[in-house]
């Protein structure tokens, strides 16, 4: 067993609606969609027209700057619609599935016999390369880069997040094959949680194993990289979600692109929160059908409560979302004199509320209200307490706000992604939109460096 890296800073937000361990097979969705905005940094170029028939694993769009990187349909069927937003930006490509699914045949291949470049081009061809994200900038990886390493975090510490051991069950072989494939491209590191005991995680081959223990964001791959070997200016590392590693394993073992995954459907407003086996890109209405406690004043989140985006039932499960969360919206709640009332039921890390007195197992109801107005930074040390990286978050944020590129670099912007600031944004008493600020900072920096 590898040495345990302990993190002290952070916060586990205990929300109501934790999923039970049961995995339910979902009914199939009437439409599926691939949403280009999920793939940050990619300029999509359509590869299909409306009414065209596609197979599962066939490209729906490609990256304009790297045409060899394909993004493929999860199902076979007819391209129903290409939805566009402002300035004709492609928002989603909707596919109506056939009754009998047809897959593009990629031959089964033995990973051991391939070179790194062969693995890479196989992934680009099959559309799985798009699951690589890179640091710096937290965008989809550039195939021309040679990454210093590839990092996979096998556990998610976000509120209500799915337990990867449940997701992994039955996919152990594919997971190991996927890891071996990654290791062909670059030295690969797998980080697991101290509480994970599955052999497929603790006895992995071809990768370096690290064990982490601590509150959220211990499961964030960015935090793990910062602890293991921080990203320096000029270096590139790639990261991949563990579910995508399973997809890669399937590609090599079965010869098809099979984006079936297990997601958590959780949150206070879900009846019987549980795990669901479902195809990537399914319509959210299929996922939440019959599971919602009420129709109004709820918020459906594509992803987890910290980094996920607000969605409606007509949206589609995001390519990087490993869960759907439904919480109360809170727009019908009016708390009287909130600045002085005791507010026993409200959750806060601050001791000006009483939630810290309750036992550590207690789960809280938190709605989507901001619960305050935006201010300049007033309190100090709020971010630091939940930010276990060797970085001064407050100073980095200020450098980004003032657009000071030199300082951003000096304070470590190459090591961070917006998700690393999610907890800071949660606890911030000045209610600043930190993830948006960091995203814009990364985009500006990238434009400046291009």
């Amino acid at each position, binding site marked *: 067993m590898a040495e345990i890296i302990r993190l002290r800073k952070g916060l586990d*937000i205990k929300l109501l609606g934790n999923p039970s361990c049961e995995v339910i097979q979902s009914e199939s969705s009437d439409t599926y969609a691939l949403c280009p905005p999920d793939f940050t940094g990619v300029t999509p170029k359509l590869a299909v027209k409306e009414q065209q028939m596609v197979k599962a694993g066939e490209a729906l769009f490609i990256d304009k700057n790297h045409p060899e990187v394909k993004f493929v349909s999860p199902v076979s069927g007819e391209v129903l619609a290409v939805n566009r937003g402002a300035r004709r930006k492609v928002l989603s490509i909707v596919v109506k599935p056939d009754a009998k699914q047809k897959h593009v045949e990629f031959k089964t291949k033995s990973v051991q016999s391939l070179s790194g470049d062969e693995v890479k081009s196989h992934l680009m061809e099959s559309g799985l390369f798009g699951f690589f994200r890179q640091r710096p900038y937290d965008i989809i990886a550039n195939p021309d880069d040679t990454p210093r390493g590839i990092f996979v975090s096998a556990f998610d510490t976000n509120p209500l997040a799915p337990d990867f051991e449940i997701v992994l069950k039955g996919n152990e072989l594919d997971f190991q094959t996927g890891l071996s494939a990654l290791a062909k491209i670059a030295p690969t590191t797998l980080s697991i949680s101290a509480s994970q005991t599955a052999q497929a995680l603790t006895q992995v081959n071809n990768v370096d194993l690290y064990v982490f223990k601590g509150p959220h964001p211990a499961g964030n791959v960015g935090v793990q990289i910062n602890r293991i070997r921080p990203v*320096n200016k*000029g*270096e590139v590392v790639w990261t991949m979600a563990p579910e995508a590693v399973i997809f890669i394993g399937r590609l090599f073992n079965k010869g098809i692109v099979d984006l079936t995954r297990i997601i958590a459907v959780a949150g206070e407003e879900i009846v019987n929160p549980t795990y669901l086996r479902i195809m990537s890109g399914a319509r959210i209405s299929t996922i939440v059908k019959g599971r919602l406690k009420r129709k109004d004043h709820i*918020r459906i*989140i594509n992803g987890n*409560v*910290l*980094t*996920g985006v607000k969605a409606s039932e007509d949206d589609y499960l995001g390519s990087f979302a490993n869960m759907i*969360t439904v*919480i109360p919206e*809170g*727009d*019908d*709640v*009016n*708390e*009287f*004199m*909130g*600045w*002085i009332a005791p507010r026993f039921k*409200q*959750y*806060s*890390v*601050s*001791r*000006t*509320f009483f939630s810290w007195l309750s036992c550590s197992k207690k789960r809280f109801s*938190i*709605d*989507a*209200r*901001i*619960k*305050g*107005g*935006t*201010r*300049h930074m*007033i*309190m*100090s*040390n709020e971010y*630091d307490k939940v930010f276990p990286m060797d*970085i*001064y978050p407050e*100073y980095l944020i200020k450098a980004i706000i003032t657009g000071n590129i030199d300082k951003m670099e*000096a304070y470590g912007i190459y090591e961070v992604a917006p998700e690393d600031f*999610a907890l800071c*944004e*949660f606890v*911030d*008493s000045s*209610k600043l939109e*930190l*993830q*948006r600020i960091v995203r814009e900072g990364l985009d500006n920096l990238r434009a400046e460096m291009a």
Partner: protein
Amino acid sequence: MGLKKFIDKIKPNFEEGGKLQAFRSVFDGFETFLFVPNTTSKSGVNIHDAFDSKRMMIMVVIALFPAFLFGSYNVGYQHYMLSGLDGSVWNMFLFGFLAVLPRLIVSYAVGLTIEFIVAQWKKQEIHEGFLVTGFIIPLIIPATCPLWILALAVAFAVIFAKELFGGTGMNFLNVALIARAFIFFAYPTVITGETVWVVDHSILGLGADMDGLTAATPLGIASTTAAAPEFNMNMVWGLIPGSVGETSVVAIALGALLLLYTGIASWKTMFSVFAGGILMAVVFNQWGPDNAMAQMSWYEHICLGGFCFGAVFMATDPVTSARTETGKWIYGLLIGIMAITIRVLNPGYPEGMMLAILLLNCFAPLIDYCVVQRNVKKRANRILNNK
């Protein structure tokens, strides 16, 4: 929820284009004062901690209450004692309260008016920072301070020390202390000397008109005579002449407990201010000049003047204090050291806390810079070692 309905009904009048749009910021301030805003997040995290700046500021005001209440009582106590009148505790408190209240009202009225105007002009929400500042200012001046001077000082501090820099959170000098410093430099006679610490007239029939009541603060005595006053428990309870809120160590300690318990004030800053003060007092005891101030024991130094009040309520102001954790130790320590040094070595003015905090306010960004620069260097070295 009748009130909520009423507010929703009159709200359109205050919005852009409404009849009363000139009072938008005022309305907004009162609306959010009555109800927690139920706007929900649009980007970023979907859930937020319930703690916001309103609750933070109110906690500080609550923490100041013991000092305010005891300070009011002490104003009455000093008047009754020096005039030789008999009075119940209640009479003394009421007298002092009536003496302090106009200063509190003027402080809030002037400061909040400026805040409302600025918020309206910049189309922002009202920032709550002045709730604390406005409460602190009457507590750090004598109860005899003329109202017009106070009004001038508050206006000066809010405009030049805060709003010019961008409002709460952007100021680098403690606003309340700037108000005090303004009075101190522009109208020194109303804040120093022997005649300013005791109210010498009756208020609404309470007390008596007594011309020429004088009382020097113990620090004043120590700086002008050869011997410091003997330490006694009144210095701890706070029954000595001085600025309204600064005299009682016990009342300030109650506030400090709340601030530390809620985590709003940094224990590191608070602790290191005291540590610095004690250290410097001991140093002067050993090697200092042979005068009363230098030979005063460390516990007397701590109890007298504005040391406790400054350490608890002003040095810990998160905006003007050092913001890094290492920086807070250095910042606090230097405040303590400077405060005692100014007391001992500056013959002109017996109290050093105000100047020490303002001085370190100026240096806090530099302290933080050095602390953060260590992290920056570490990162730069990592690249060098990689090559």
